[in-house]
């Protein structure tokens, strides 16, 4: 299991659309809109997914229409959490390769 956070810079006009996309993604577990000097418009996103799939997930997010830039800020990989997710009934994608 990987828990990671990213900053997504998003075109101002498309914030709602991107937010809707992110909200519908199972791996996106927390989301906060940003309005700051460095990120005029965008999101801080916490992701949780199978460890081996994190890289693909990041690529997918980066390629979303209207996402201008993706910065990976934090990544933690841990097996125990995967087992726990499975026990807790969260959809698990099997053991990390």
């Amino acid at each position, binding site marked *: 299991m990987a*828990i*990671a*956070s*990213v*900053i997504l810079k998003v075109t101002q006009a498309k914030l709602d659309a991107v937010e809707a996309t992110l909200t519908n993604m199972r791996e996106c*577990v*927390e989301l*906060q809109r*940003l*309005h*700051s*000097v*460095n*990120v005029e418009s965008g999101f*801080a*996103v*916490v*992701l*949780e997914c199978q*460890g081996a799939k994190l890289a693909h997930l990041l690529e997918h997010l980066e390629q979303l229409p209207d996402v201008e830039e993706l*910065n*990976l*800020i*934090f*990544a*933690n*990989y*841990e*097996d*125990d*959490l995967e*087992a*726990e*997710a499975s*026990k*807790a009934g969260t959809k698990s994608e099997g053991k990390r390769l």
Partner: protein
Amino acid sequence: MLYKVMDRSRRDFLRSMAMSAALAAVSDLSLPAMAHAADPDKPDKWVKGVCRYCGTGCGVLIGVKNGRAVAIQGDPNNHNAGLLCLKGSLLIPVLNCKERVTQPLVRRQKGGPLTPISWDEALDLMASKFKDSIAKYGPDSVAWYGSGQCLTEESYLANKIFKGGFGTNNVDGNPRLCMASAVGGYTTTFGKDEPMGSYEDIDKATCFFIIGSNTSEAHPVLFRRVARRKQVEPGVKIIVADPRRTNTSRIADIHIAFRPGTDLALMHSMAWVIIHEELDNPRFWNRHVNFINPEGQPATFEDYKAFLEQYRPEKVAEICQIPVQQIYDAGRIFAESAATMSLWCMGINQRVQGVFANNLIHNLHLLTGQICRPGATSFSLTGQPNACGGVRDTGSLAHLLPAGRQVANPKHRAEMEQLWGLPQGRISPKVGPHTVALFEALGRSEIRCVIICETNPAHTLPNLNKFHKAMSNPDAFIVSIEAFPDAVTLQFADLVLAPAFWCERDGVYGCGERRYSLTEKAVDGPGQVRPTVNTLVEFAKRAGVDPKLVNFKNAEDVWNEWRMVSKGTTYDFSGMTRERLRKESGILWPCPSEDHPGTPMRFVRGVDPLVPANHPTRVFFYGKPDGRACIFMRPAKGAAEEPDQDYPLYLTSMRVIDHWHTATMTGKVPELLKANPAAFVEINSADAAKYNIKHGEMVIVETRRDAIALPARVSDICRPGLIAVPFFDAKKLVNKLFLDATDPGSREPEYKICAARLRKA
């Protein structure tokens, strides 16, 4: 179902940490700033300081309202550019926690309780005990055991009181347990301690060789910088050499999970590849390097090449139990990168071959010329906030004097006697005992009085049962200057003094990149706490030290003397006035004048003020008489205690991201405590299957020294045959399991390897 609860909490914690890191990365919208904005009780002022935890030395701003610390944020002008890890972000609850030593305490008789005593009585008692001991048994019957958490001013002053005032070199400190091998590596290879590079190199490197360091958990802010570098430049390569598959290894292009203790062979083998594929840099090593054979005698490049024949990759791959291709790839990437930066920490240092392992990292840089260029450097990471500036630089170890001087060198002793205004011959020529020997001497009543300052040796020493016995010696008088009442060492203390903690007093910390930063006083401490500088001055005067030696009113006075003692040395930071430190967010030494900006890279003409402007070569290793660094032919040997039939597993000690050292601070923060409340043993799933151990079951971890029951965490983090334990938990003193064998050069203990066995509880 403790583990279910624990894992759920940890998961929540990691999610929260991930979000806080993301928000902190957007510098004008950090969590503290948001908290501040949401809080109608806005701070009156922000006071500049340095984080109290690891050796990264992140700058912080402490928000104060009505004399109380209420918020913290990263200092945008320091090297961390406003970022903090979660531990750092949660420092305010530690500062404000109720569990503090707020007044002096005395144990009137061994085994009795600690009871309050006035400062006056406490200092008189302490002074009389030390004076009596010196009168009866000589100056070598007293000792100071300091810390990489003391302020620079505190370490410098204690060193002066003991070496100059009492006339004993019985001064050591906990950096002996973590950084001494790095000191040995730098001083033997380059002639001078401390890294030549700085954190800026991370932003320029195109290859990182990370060995013996779980940077992601032990130095999160630096790891974030490394990860960001790779993200910005996808061509950047990361090689991680570690027997554990840590979070650090997960961003690596190559993870070399070698058999514990075989990393010296691995590095020699990488050198073999580099030479045999003509990836070395003869232009560099011809000019700047001497080769030294295993006997310590001058040798040639051809001798070195012949020496490396015993480390051919095919053979070493078998020794290390790794794919041979990894050795070839690692050697090639290291050498062919535009700029390679090595990072290492306890996995290299806490070994009986710690100094040699350090030398071999430097070897790779010198052989390839991957040094003294932006991004190309060999950089030792540091575990404590002031091990470098406070203990290494002030010479507060048993064999050192300030600014790189050595006790054993008569010229250096004479210089310090002159600087301190001492009569000739006052500083003893006898090197004092290193940490393990110091506590052994306490057990034998050879040392009878010791001050232990801001460190917790009854938790951190190896082979703890032996040293608990030593610290229980009825002849011993142990003074502990300690902020937190739950530190295990207090159980052995006869007198406890209440220090002002962190920003309750002002002083300087020097972090891993030679950066000195000032923490200004932000708040008053609770109860009767006092700045340790004042405590030491008062103690010294009462113990009979010449008052002229300790004529200091405050830490600033001490700093000004130490600044001038550094003048003209290779550490010269005489340009760092207190006023400058108040204005600037840290300065890197050398800094020989008040208009000097500091030195991001040593040994380089035009950058390092100590290299003459007209020096004929760009690089000049001035720590060596002929200006050449050394490539050493250090034989690779095993650990002090290898697994055998009775104890078939390797046991290693490790860190977790949620706690710092003995958790006397992080244990006060509910979020951190919940995330990792107790020690555990990490077991590879193949070993767990072999022993029929299930995740969460209690198991007994046993070595030749002790046995401890711990819950099992079954995963693929450890390689098969290796188990790992964190050492933060005071209820499970896992250092009882480790042996106290030390490196013959640095005298740093081997916490990283011993033989163990497992059974179900």
